[in-house]
Structure formats: structure tokens, C-alpha cells
């Protein structure tokens, strides 16, 4: 029997944007077990509910993470709106949907860049992030912030987007789609890239279900599940299919995410075409009383927002269950039997967002 050794991985590692620690049990070059340890960036944001009132909490929740920030604010607002039975105006819903899909484009482009970096394709990484910069510029133009938008409020959105801006968004996203088609070829057809991704980190459909994975990670294993099907915000009016892949490996995860960028760009176009006129927010009176679960499809997968209120202006409990939290058990499974050299790549394929996970 080969000798076993334990290699600590993280919390600081070039491939990790955020700290997570894994103890890898190795037999020669093969990983036979991985033991996770998180908690390096736990800030206890959820417990701030008893210091900040429910309107201020929107801004706190948004700052959970810099990549999924818009969706966090949106999920929190929808959960409070659900408790208070507030129906937000159609234009508000469409604007939220548009920004959410733009967030998806920006998050997936960021991930593609990081993936390219993880398998050592530096110039591809630059190309992806150069494209992402255009989305960030659109955010800055429409909301005033590049990563943290602060446009959500209970009852709608704060800033309207005029027709000129909408036209710019549509034109720019079309440009991104055209550029991405070129880059897609490198990701999907390049011999070296394929050799690095195909057959690495296999997670079968059954395993993916039994480990409770979510989002593109699950969809790449052939699970047809997308929270947007529940029709929150304006998704009920839009036309889209759930993108899945039956590859079950890193290549499949890359494929799903690239296709989701095209889908998101298409959804942004649909939003802009169907954008109704009217108010962007309703006036919300009183304090919430009750509890609600809201499920949302974040770029990384299903996120659950739970709010519990007792009629005062401070909520009793606010909880975010982020997709990375659900994907960690799946990651541990893919690591078993993997080569030590593939570990950084595999950690990246679940698109880890540790700040969200620990809150």
C-alpha cells in the first residue's frame, strides 16, 4: 500500500480568490479524501438584523459579497415583500430581471477568466476580464456602482433606466456576445484546453442529486433544475430553456456557463424589448410581520432567503443559504480520486464564493 500523506491546501492559494482550507489526504499523487474547513471570513452579517432596521438591511445584505451583490439585495427585498404582500410595479420587476441577468453575465465572465487562469492560459484570462469590464461600465452607467449597485429597495427599485441607456445596454451586450463567440471556440475546441478539462472531476447525475448540488454545477451533471422556472421577478414573461450538459465533468461545467452567458444576453434583450412603462416602485407602509422563504437562481445556483419578522421595524431572523454552501459536499466528492495537480481546477469549477457562504 502506498504511503498516505496530508497536504494542507489554502486558505491562501493563487487559485483561490477567497479563503477556504482543505486538508487533502494523498496516496502518491491521488487525492483519496478532502476535509474542508471554512470560517476565515465569517462576519455574522445575519445577526445585524437586530441593529439595522429592515430598510437599512438591504444595504447590508447587498454587501455580503461583491459578485452576487445585486441578487442578494433582490432576494432579501423579495422575501420582505412576500411577507408584506407587496406587488411591485412591472417596470421594477423588469429592471430587476435585467440587472440580475447582467450580473450573471459579469459573474460567469469572471469565472471563465479565473478558469483560464487556473489551467494556465493567461491571455485568455485577460480577454474574459476585458469583456467583463464592459458589463461593469454598463452597471456604473445605470446604477452608479460597479459591483455594489444599491438600487434595490423594499417595494421596487430606486433608479430608472431611460431609453438611451437601454439601447446602449442592448448594443453592448450584443458586442459581448459576438466577442464571446470567438472565445468560446478556444474554450470548447482548443486541444490543450480540452485535454485539461475533459474527464476531470466527474460527478454523475445520481451523485449530484444525492449530494444536494445546485446551479450550473448540478446542471452540468444533467439535472434539469433552475429556480428561474418559478417565475420570480419578470422571468414568468420571458422565454428561456434550462441549459444542461450531460458531460458531468469540468468541460460540461464550462460549457453550461458559457451557454448561460448567451442565454443571459438573450434574456437582457427580451427584457429591453418588453420593458413596460410606468412606476418603478410602490410605497410600502408599516412593518413586516410573518415569515417567508424565497428561492432564486444566482449565477452560482439556488440561493434561499429566509426572513422572519415580528411586526417591529427590526427583523427577527434573516438567513441566506448560498449556492456554494450546497456545492461544497459535491466538491469533496469530485476531489476523491483526482490528481493533486487538478485540485485547484476542481475547486474552481464549483465557482466558490466563500464570503457569501460564511456571511
Amino acid at each position, binding site marked *: 500500500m502506498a504511503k498516505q500523506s496530508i497536504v494542507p491546501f489554502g486558505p491562501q492559494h493563487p487559485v483561490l480568490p477567497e479563503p477556504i482550507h482543505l486538508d487533502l489526504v494523498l496516496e502518491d499523487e491521488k487525492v483519496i479524501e478532502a476535509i474542508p474547513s471554512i*470560517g476565515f471570513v465569517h462576519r455574522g452579517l445575519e445577526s445585524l438584523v437586530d441593529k439595522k432596521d429592515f430598510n437599512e438591511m438591504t444595504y447590508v445584505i447587498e454587501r455580503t459579497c461583491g459578485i452576487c451583490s445585486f441578487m442578494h439585495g433582490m432576494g432579501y427585498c423579495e422575501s420582505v415583500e412576500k411577507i408584506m404582500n407587496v406587488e411591485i410595479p412591472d417596470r421594477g420587476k423588469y429592471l430587476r430581471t435585467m440587472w440580475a441577468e447582467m450580473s450573471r453575465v459579469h459573474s460567469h465572465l469572471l469565472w471563465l477568466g479565473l478558469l483560464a487562469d487556473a489551467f494556465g492560459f493567461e491571455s485568455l484570462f485577460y480577454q474574459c476580464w476585458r469583456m467583463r469590464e464592459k458589463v461593469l461600465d454598463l452597471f456604473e452607467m445605470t446604477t452608479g456602482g460597479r459591483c455594489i449597485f444599491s438600487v434595490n429597495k423594499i417595494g421596487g427599485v430606486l433608479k430608472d433606466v431611460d431609453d438611451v441607456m437601454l439601447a446602449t445596454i442592448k448594443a453592448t451586450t450584443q458586442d459581448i456576445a459576438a466577442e464571446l463567440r470567438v472565445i468560446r471556440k478556444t474554450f470548447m475546441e482548443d486541444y490543450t484546453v480540452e485535454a485539461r478539462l475533459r474527464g476531470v472531476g466527474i460527478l454523475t447525475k445520481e451523485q449530484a442529486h444525492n449530494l444536494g448540488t445546485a446551479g450550473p454545477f448540478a446542471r452540468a451533471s444533467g439535472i434539469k433544475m433552475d429556480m428561474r422556472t418559478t417565475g420570480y421577478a419578470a422571468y414568468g414573461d420571458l422565454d428561456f430553456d434550462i441549459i444542461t450538459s450531460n458531460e458531468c465533468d469540468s468541460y460540461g461545467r464550462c460549457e453550461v456557463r458559457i451557454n448561460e452567458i448567451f442565454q443571459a444576453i438573450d434574456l437582457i434583450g427580451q427584457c429591453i424589448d418588453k420593458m413596460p412603462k410606468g412606476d418603478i416602485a410602490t410605497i410600502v407602509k408599516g412593518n413586516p410581520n410573518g415569515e417567508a422563504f424565497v428561492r432564486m437562481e444566482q449565477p452560482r445556483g439556488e440561493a434561499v432567503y429566509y426572513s422572519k419578522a415580528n411586526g417591529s421595524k427590526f427583523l427577527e431572523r434573516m438567513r441566506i443559504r448560498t449556492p456554494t454552501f450546497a456545492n461544497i459536499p459535491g466538491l469533496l466528492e469530485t476531489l476523491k480520486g483526482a490528481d493533486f495537480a487538478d485540485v485547484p481546477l476542481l475547486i474552481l469549477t464549483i465557482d466558490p464564493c466563500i464570503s457569501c457562504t460564511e456571511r
Partner: protein
Amino acid sequence: MEIKNPEHVIVQITPEELLGNVVAMKKNGLRLSQICCAYSNEKLELSYSFADDNTYDYINLRLVIDKDTEVCSITELYPYAFLYENEMKELFGVNIMMLNVDYNSKLYRLHDETPFIK
């Protein structure tokens, strides 16, 4: 696109009924979506949420217990529940028995014990 958005269900159960209910969920092929805890009126409220990925049903099992009531871990049935259960144990001090991976309050690096209990 067909919208599937059934009402979320909350089922009140007692700690003794927990495992039986979870077995039923497992048999129906439901996915454990999340477990969360809330503290109100000196009671702990545990919500075990199960999701059906075909019908988008969302079923929450709700336990309302005292601080020292023992709750059986569901990691035997859903091994990936260990992160949620460790989190509850650490932040709220929920008395969870028979955890398969117990971090012994070292999941998060905390200054205070059970900071979410006020």
C-alpha cells in the same frame, strides 16, 4: 416557459417525528435544500427545507424546541447536512446528537459562544 411555483409548505413537527419525516422525504427523492435556525421568544425554531427539483415543491419541516432539547442529526440520511447542522450548533447552540462530521464549534472562528442567541 412553463412557470412552476407551488406554495411553500410549512409542516409543524415534534423532535421525535423528525427522522420519520426525513425518511419519507428521502424516499420521495427530495433534495435537502437548507436547514436554518431562528431564535424567538426563548425558543429555537428549526426549519428543514426540502426541494423537489421536478415540481419545484418546497416543503419545510418546522421544529419548535427549547434550548436544551436534543435533536437527532439527519446526517445518516442526508450526509451533506453536516455543514448546516454544525452551523446551527455553533451559532445557536442547538443540541444535535450523532453528527457524522462534528467540527466541535470550530467551523467558524468565533469570539463568543453561540453569538446568535440574544
